[in-house]
């Protein structure tokens, strides 16, 4: 806390304005919901604004999102025009008052056209290690107007003429999603969803998005189930800027078929329920095909749960293979890892404990707050060693 106060003092007089595309749903809103009040409490003048956009705009930005992850998308001239038209309206209507303007992800990226004598940061929360060239080129022309950029993992960095910083997201250990829960609360949530704890539970908590590969998780579970009687929970909510969620949920349900041991839950925005489901699980998986950071991994590790996850995005920053979890590259690899953990509870417990320590030292909100404040200070200094 002393460090945080020291930093906040150095930012006296500055106003930080965060801008993103949704106040609810997804990791960015979750981070800002925590970060903004805490920065204010530390005395850093901070505000959070959300751009406006209709269904068409978010269809386009979802295509951008997929294309930036390397997925083939049909993106035509009309799509770029829809993006620019909505961007122009936001540029016109949204007041820019920050000394430091912090733009999150591609949706509000064009707001940089309003840059004057203030400092602008572009924070990329997604995996852009192998982006579609045309979409990247389109965004690049905005990115280079920023003073600095931020990425969640080293592999996301690109060749840019502006400074790039590595800041991983974080969890709030005292939030509803991560705090300790009494057993009766956990039991209550399981009961609500008709889940009986009579066999091990394997869980993935994520939005229903193809890049999280919920169908792949079902395949993995089926391979495990041949040898170990267990059950699978696939649980996630929606986000207001993700229009594909409903389709993916249907695909997932179809693949699950009539297996009574597969529980597919579309959760309301309820962090206690997510917390409870994670705490009730024997093993937690994150079999993402692409991932920005994968906050759910930190959540699981914080709860000392053994994790099986993909070598994707920021996940290897959180899971050191065979030390604080198991990493996999395929459905077969994931299934093998899950079987290992279910068959070796002592090993699983050890991985979970190490994971907890790793998150405690590196991925809590206090570290994230520090990084952001240092980032703000770096806007005014170009040296490698800065005396404050």
């Amino acid at each position, binding site marked *: 806390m*002393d460090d945080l106060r020291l*930093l906040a003092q150095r930012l006296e007089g500055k106003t930080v304005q965060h801008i993103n595309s949704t106040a609810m749903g997804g990791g960015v809103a979750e981070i800002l919901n925590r970060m903004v009040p805490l920065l204010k409490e530390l005395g850093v003048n901070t505000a959070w604004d959300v751009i406006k956009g209709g269904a068409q705009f978010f269809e386009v930005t979802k295509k951008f999102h997929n294309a930036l992850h390397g997925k083939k998308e049909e993106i035509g001239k009309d799509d770029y025009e829809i993006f620019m038209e909505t961007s122009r309206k936001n540029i016109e209507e949204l007041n820019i008052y920050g000394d430091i303007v912090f733009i999150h992800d591609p949706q509000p990226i064009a707001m940089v056209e309003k840059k004057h004598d203030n400092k602008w940061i572009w924070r990329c929360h997604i995996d852009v290690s192998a982006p579609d060239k045309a979409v990247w080129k389109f965004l690049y022309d905005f990115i280079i107007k920023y003073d600095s950029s931020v990425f969640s993992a*080293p592999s996301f960095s690109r060749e840019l003429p502006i400074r790039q910083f*590595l800041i991983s997201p974080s969890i709030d250990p005292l939030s509803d999603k991560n705090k300790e829960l009494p057993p009766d609360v956990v039991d209550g949530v399981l009961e609500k969803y008709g889940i009986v704890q009579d066999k091990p539970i394997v869980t993935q908590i994520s939005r229903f998005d193809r890049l999280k590969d919920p169908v792949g998780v079902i395949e993995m579970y089926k391979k495990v189930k041949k040898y170990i009687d267990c059950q699978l929970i696939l649980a996630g909510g929606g986000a207001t800027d993700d229009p594909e969620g409903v389709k993916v949920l249907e695909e997932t349900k179809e693949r699950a078929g009539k297996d009574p041991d597969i529980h597919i839950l579309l959760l309301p925005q309820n962090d206690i329920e997510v917390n409870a489901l994670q705490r009730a699980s024997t093993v937690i998986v994150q079999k993402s095909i692409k991932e920005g950071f994968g906050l759910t991994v930190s959540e699981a590790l914080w709860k000392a749960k053994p994790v099986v996850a993909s070598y994707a995005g920021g996940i290897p920053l959180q899971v050191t293979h065979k030390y604080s979890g198991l990493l996999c590259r395929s459905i077969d690899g994931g299934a093998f890892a899950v079987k290992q953990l279910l068959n070796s509870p002592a090993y699983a417990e050890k991985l979970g404990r190490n994971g907890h320590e790793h998150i405690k030292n590196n991925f809590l909100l206090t570290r994230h707050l*520090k990084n952001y404040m240092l980032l703000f200070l770096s806007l005014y200094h170009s040296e490698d060693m*800065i005396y404050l």
Partner: protein
Amino acid sequence: MAEKEIKKAIQPFRFYTRLHLSELTGLRAASLAELLERIREVPEACIYHHTHRFLQQHLYLSPEPPNDFAYWVSEALGEDDLGEMLASIDTIQFSNIADLREKIVSTIEDYLQESKSAVGRSARHGEEFYFIKSISFVFPLQHVANDLAEFVGILEAISADSIYFHMFEARLRLKRGTNDFSYWIETSLGDKKLADDIAKLDPYTHTIEDLRNKLVRMVKKRCGA
């Protein structure tokens, strides 16, 4: 028995702390040859980052792989022999980053001369080595010690970042030749023995907390506590 008189320092010791940010350079390496080329040319702040990051990130592990280069050549390239050579580099013997860089370069160069099979080996896609710089922000703290008793009291309580700054960063990055604690104990208290004993510690084979405990024990013993 009379109380042992505590010697006052000529200059008080002001504790600092250091916070850091990681800056991505956009530079990467997929093979040993590329790693070597990049290590020769990247800023010193990169060499510092990749040889000291583990210390801060894995405070609870002892000991951890001392540097990213060693870890990467073993894990991503499978060159375990070279990994061990790089991990064994006695960082404490170097008083500046330029010399440390030169040692890393010569170790890899010699290895490539001896091991032709290593030349063609590449890391899988997505497991390349990414060069990162450490940007350090140094702050003075309110804690000031005028003698060893005050010094050890503060040492027991300050953050790991502060110990890290005075033991590692001041010595190597600021080219002070020795750690801050030894320097102060010798020059302001005239206690060369204690200064030398602390300087002899190899901090790279301790966790920060182990290092703190060791330092506290050494100073308390000196104070007769």
